[in-house]
């Protein structure tokens, strides 16, 4: 097991190297000049050239890459062109809102979707099943920003239960933190509820036809325990897979939600960096995201063996 984890961690290195090279190249080859953006509309050619020289952008691409990679190797992500701050600091400052949002979203999604999916499977073919599946289709098809604005309109503007937008750090008090987190988290969770509920239903439905479910009934077990003790654990592997993929997608999804709700997280940082052609920041954020993806995939694989003793690495 430990050997397996080590091998998997080693295998992430080439993945991250490839990501780093691709990101670096793509940014350098797309049109747009960060020096011009920084210098502003009224800058002279000399001023732009000066800035370009200061940022090292006048060097050959290969040399730029070597410098960046060398710094990266020493744990130095570089300095943002736009924010004029070390990028490590930037990320640390922005990570709490994003993590809080992602965590809250998944918490809501899992605790709503799994019972719904199990219920739909148990009541297979009934109106409950159809309602759950109908909701699932709806959740898939309505874009995040529409749900976001709709929720803001109803719960923030009309009812006034929650602030329209913004973020309050956890250090500023749990109540305020939670109050500002609820709407964005619910918004984001809708699509994951749809996805996870659907997968749970399909997976549990299949398991319910298994012989050991009949055995459990023959023992006199009550239906609730048959569903949650016998069926759900057997159905867990595909469910864990979508939850994992969900978390990975979520990181991408926060870009939109953080914009809609004005949350100063990594999503907003990414958007700002892209608009400013802030190469080092974009590179760092994408590298961070891919590291998270790889890590989540490893966690999913490890979770399999937790739920199914037949899976061993």
């Amino acid at each position: 097991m430990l050997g397996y984890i080590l091998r998997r961690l080693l295998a992430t290195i080439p993945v991250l190297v490839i990501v780093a090279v691709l990101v670096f190249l793509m940014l350098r080859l797309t049109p747009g000049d960060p020096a011009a953006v920084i210098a502003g509309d009224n800058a002279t050619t000399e001023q732009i050239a000066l800035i370009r020289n200061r940022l090292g952008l006048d060097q050959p691409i290969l040399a730029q890459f070597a410098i960046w990679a060398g710094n990266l190797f020493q744990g130095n992500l570089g300095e943002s062109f736009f924010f004029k701050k070390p990028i490590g600091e930037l990320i640390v400052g922005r990570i709490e809102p994003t993590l809080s949002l992602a965590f809250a979203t998944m918490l809501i999604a899992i605790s709503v979707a799994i019972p719904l999916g199990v219920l739909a499977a148990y009541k297979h073919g009934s109106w409950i099943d159809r309602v759950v599946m109908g909701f699932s289709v709806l959740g898939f098809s309505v874009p995040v920003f529409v749900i976001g604005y709709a929720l803001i309109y109803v719960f923030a503007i009309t009812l006034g239960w929650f602030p329209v937008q913004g973020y309050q750090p956890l250090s500023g008090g749990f109540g305020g933190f939670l109050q500002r987190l609820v709407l964005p988290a619910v918004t984001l969770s809708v699509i994951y509820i749809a996805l996870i509920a659907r997968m749970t239903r399909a997976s549990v439905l299949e398991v319910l036809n298994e012989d050991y479910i009949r055995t459990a009934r023959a023992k006199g077990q009550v239906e609730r325990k048959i569903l949650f003790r016998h069926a759900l654990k057997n159905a867990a592997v595909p469910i864990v897979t979508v939850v994992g993929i969900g978390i990975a997608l979520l990181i991408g999804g926060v870009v939109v939600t953080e914009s809609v709700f004005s949350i100063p997280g990594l999503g907003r940082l990414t958007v700002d960096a892209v608009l400013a052609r802030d190469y080092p920041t974009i590179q760092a954020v994408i590298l961070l995201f891919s590291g998270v993806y790889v890590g989540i995939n490893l966690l999913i694989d490890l979770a399999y063996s937790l739920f199914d003793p037949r899976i061993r690495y």
Partner: protein
Amino acid sequence: MSNAQTPVLEIAGLSIALPGGGDRARAVDDVSLSVAAGEIVCVVGESGSGKSVTAFSVMGLLAKALKPVAGAIKLEGEDLLTATPQRLRALRGDRMAMIFQEPMTALNPVLTIGDQIEEVLRIHTDLGPAERRAQVLAMLESMRLPEPERMHASYPHQISGGQRQRVMIAAALILDPALLIADEPTTALDVTTQAQILRLIKDMQSRRGTGVLFITHDFGVVAEIADRVVVMEKGRVVEQGPAADILTHPQHPYTQMLIAAVPSLKPADRKPALGPLALETVGLAKTYGSKTLFSKARIVHAAKDVAIRVRRGETVGIVGESGSGKTTVARCVARLMPPSEGSILVPDIDIAKLSEGRLRPYRRKIQVVFQDPFRSLNPRRTVGASIVEGPMNFGLGAKEAMQRARDLMALVGLQPNALERYPHQFSGGQRQRIAIARALAMEPEILIADEAVSALDVSVQKQVLALLADVQERFNLAILFITHDLRVAAQICDRIVVMEKGVIVEQGATAQVFSAPAHAYTRALIEAAPGRDFATGLAAVDAVQA
């Protein structure tokens, strides 16, 4: 022992309706039977006879589509058909328990053995964790399971099939139910394991005075354990009575037919086959596993140093239990998998190492009939399309191929219009006929039958065996017959090869192997065959004397 006056189970006039569109209106029609305390009642019948439906209706575990419409089921005098779901749940696992055919799938793969047995105690008793654990360990011990402590913490995939069935029995009997329902509990097990499990069931029920309703299709098993027998056909009870009477003096024609269809363990007289050699394997071996970069070598010898010879017109049986390597040999000979070592001569060229391209002409010569005809025929293609595909791959024109398929349908006893239908529209026996026709369409010289009759009811099995004998004579086929069933082997094989753990332990003429088995494993196999005394007529004498 409980009150001997009230039967443990009494079924009176039970009828269960089938949903519309079935081949009959009632799955079970006016069935009456009873089980007394300490008695084993076998319900015998072929697939579709309603024996399992009867058993499940007692447990209240019928599929929703099946509804009891008349009659009563009484457990220790209490009517189960009118009981509330809560009451039924309370009785299940406590007063009545059930074990099933497939012990692998009947146990939950993600929960430990101990947990699954303890579950019964958690549901029905107020015992604390320590007491539960102690009871389960004692039960495991009495099931003669090795290392109860380790067993308690094991998962189902870590133990053998026989052990799994013991675990099922432990879970069923831990609360001393009045009634144990056993639905084909040994059908999926090897003969030697089957013998042990039958002995265990008999032992436990006589010690605890449990009434047992035992569902089986196997008269050998009936002869082994039954006190009384109930014979069912198409949802009705056609005959019931003491086991000795039914086995020796069956009254109803259906019972007579069923008993007559059980192949005898006494080898049939067969003329020695003197045809030319069709197949020979020399030092055939198949190993799995290899050294990888990160793990130590773990090599499994699925088959080792296998030498068999089959002549044209001869049937050579490979017998053995699961894991003996018999199917591995069959698959290697058909080159469905490449052998690791050795040669396969057919008869003058070695096909063991031929490349796929050079092997192709020889593919036609060796054809296989598999165990499960439903899974070996493509469900989305018509029978005709499945049959003509092979010959047309080898250049036969569509018209000629279709004509050949029509001729073959007549040969295997099916209507020519069967060619336009799909596999699911046929019964198991008919599907196996189709599978044989498909193999014959290739005009093979060697036919491999891999457990080809194991999934069939005895009466159908008898017909398919007769068909195989017929086509063998007609086409002078060399048949390699893989089976775990010694009775079938005794009837159809000229020579027998006995395999154990990948190695041939004995081979010889069928009569010789059965009358004077040389190897201890062969003797164990023959001894474990259920109802072997019954087959040779000894049980009849014993029963009369008793």
